[in-house]
């Protein structure tokens, strides 16, 4: 009874709006009351949540395993850095250029899914992440190779400098909130339903008049667009970029955020991001094993609860271990009742 009441409480819309308002108010007040480290962690969460939400559109809604998201992030960051340091382009223009340029790269990478199965696209994304690193490390004249590009000026929209830590915090906050609203509206729209239809049953979707290849390419472009924006923000926020940030390990971390939060849920992406940004900060001694910890989390989640914390039912298994235990408990209850009768 108590559990049902609790569930009722959380499923009410008014409760949800109330909780969201508290969260919003807390994040607005946070920079004035906390220290620099906390502010930095929350800012990192904002940037990473852009990445994980983009990857959620690709992986959780369209069902494509994208293991090169960090490389797209890197494309956005390098476009911004090169435009700002080499050509003195203002940040607002570089920001848009990063988004659109990365989306174009995403378009080129996803074109093979016109003819090939979805699984093949994950091979291409892994290959892309390695090719990206090879190009960045060897094209000395443009990307300055392994030493990276320093001295990127701070975030600046239309001549207004956001150089203080609090101002940067609020810019990142605003971009994250706007992106969240845009992405969740995309996933609730007709196109979002088409994406989920393609994920669940490609043939069925096709017979309902949806073009799977188009949907896949478009969702890939949307996801990589937000990765590009995140890249621009990251480059201007940190002020320096190097190839070692945008490795395959970062891509798997981004994907793990989506899995933990729950595939097929945009708020889930944010929840997963919070966990994977805060975890390495709190257990620094385990930082060496971060990859392994992420792997164990992936394994256990897939075996026991593939839909993650708040993911879509489409990922839940019918005969997973969790369901089996549940069935056994139900069977025991039925047997008990029969005994009493």
């Amino acid at each position, binding site marked *: 009874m108590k559990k049902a009441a609790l569930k009722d409480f959380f499923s009410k819309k008014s409760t949800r709006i109330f909780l969201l308002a508290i969260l919003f108010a807390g994040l607005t007040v946070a920079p004035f009351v906390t220290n620099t480290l906390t502010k930095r962690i929350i800012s990192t969460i904002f940037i990473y949540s852009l990445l994980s939400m983009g990857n959620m559109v690709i992986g959780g809604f369209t*069902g494509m395993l994208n*293991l090169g998201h960090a490389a797209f992030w890197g494309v956005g960051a390098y476009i911004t850095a090169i435009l700002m340091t080499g050509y003195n382009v203002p940040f607002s223009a570089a920001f848009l250029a990063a988004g659109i340029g990365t989306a174009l790269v995403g378009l080129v990478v996803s074109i093979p899914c016109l003819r090939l199965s979805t*699984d093949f696209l*994950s091979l291409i994304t892994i290959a892309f992440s390695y090719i990206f690193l*090879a190009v960045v490390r060897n094209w000395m004249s443009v990307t300055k190779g392994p030493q990276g590009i320093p001295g990127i000026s701070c975030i600046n929209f239309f001549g207004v400098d956001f150089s203080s830590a609090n101002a940067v915090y609020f810019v990142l906050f605003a971009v994250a909130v706007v992106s969240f609203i845009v992405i969740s509206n995309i996933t609730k729209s007709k196109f979002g339903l088409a994406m989920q239809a393609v994920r669940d049953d490609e043939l069925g979707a096709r017979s309902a008049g949806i073009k799977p290849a188009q949907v896949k390419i478009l969702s890939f472009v949307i996801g990589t667009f937000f990765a590009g924006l995140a890249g621009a923000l990251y480059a201007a926020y940190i002020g320096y970029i190097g190839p070692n940030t945008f490795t395959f390990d970062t891509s798997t971390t981004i994907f793990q955020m989506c899995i933990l939060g729950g595939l097929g849920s945009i708020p889930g992406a944010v929840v997963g991001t919070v966990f994977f940004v805060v975890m390495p900060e709190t257990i620094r001694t385990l930082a*060496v094993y971060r990859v*392994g910890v992420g792997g164990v989390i992936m394994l256990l989640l*897939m075996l026991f609860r593939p839909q993650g914390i708040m993911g879509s039912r489409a*990922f839940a*298994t019918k005969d997973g271990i969790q369901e089996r235990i549940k069935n056994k408990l139900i069977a025991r209850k039925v047997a008990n009742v029969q005994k009493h009768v």
Partner: protein
Amino acid sequence: MNPDLIYFFQTLLNGLAVGSMYSMIAVGYSMVYCLLNRVNFAHGDLYVFGTFISFSMMQIFPIPAAILFACLLAGLIGMTIERTVYRPVRDAFRLVPMISALGAALVLRTIAQIVWGTEALAFPSLLPGGYLEIAGLKLFYKNFVIIGISLFIVIGLTCFMRYTKLGRATQCIVESLSTASLMGIPINRIIPLIYALGGFFGVVGGVAYSSYYGVVSMDMGIWGTIKAWAAVILGGVGTTYGAFIGGLILGLAETFASGYLSSAYKEAVGYIVIIAILMLKPTGLLGKKRIEKV
């Protein structure tokens, strides 16, 4: 002989050897892949793990025993991975087994990093070092040994799949899992066995690769998965010799790219060749067309 021509033949020979090593890793992968049509992310890390084990065993035991032991152990690990990571989620959504396999790969990688460290280790060269010179062309013995081993494995596995009862049962499972189990084929015994074979031959390829380049490192893991996967898809899913030919093409493309263009971009060129071939022929070079039924 014309020096350009010598250079060409030298590159060709090297490319064939590199391709043979890829195909040795890819052959095992191909068998696992075609069984359930699920991408096996753990394969790359498994074969590197096995190569590391053989490296450690060589300090204690004679070399052939060490390699055999490592191969068998990798087969055992492959079976364990199948039992713990794949079987519980076999009927789940398509992405779920892929993700759990990636998790297993990351766990294997972390264990290897804890035991052997993150740096690349120098692997002893087990292949004969000399060469035969014909008209200015240097024919290295090690290239021929590697090509020979991989040919032997491919022919052996093809015969195994065609002429033994076990191989035919495997082909039945490839055709349809549920029908095979209805016909009384013990699928839960054959599938782990195929995973074990995949791990076994993966380590053979891994040892050959490591002793050819004289280095073993954990970075080869995910890279090996990609190479094997690319070779399998290129050659066509479902045949062992398809994976062999795919591996050869991949190796040749990379070696010619590094010989005539730049070694920094050899991998990129390899992938561009694969994507170009697949765009023209999506089933791979020797693959059969799979018609999706409702």
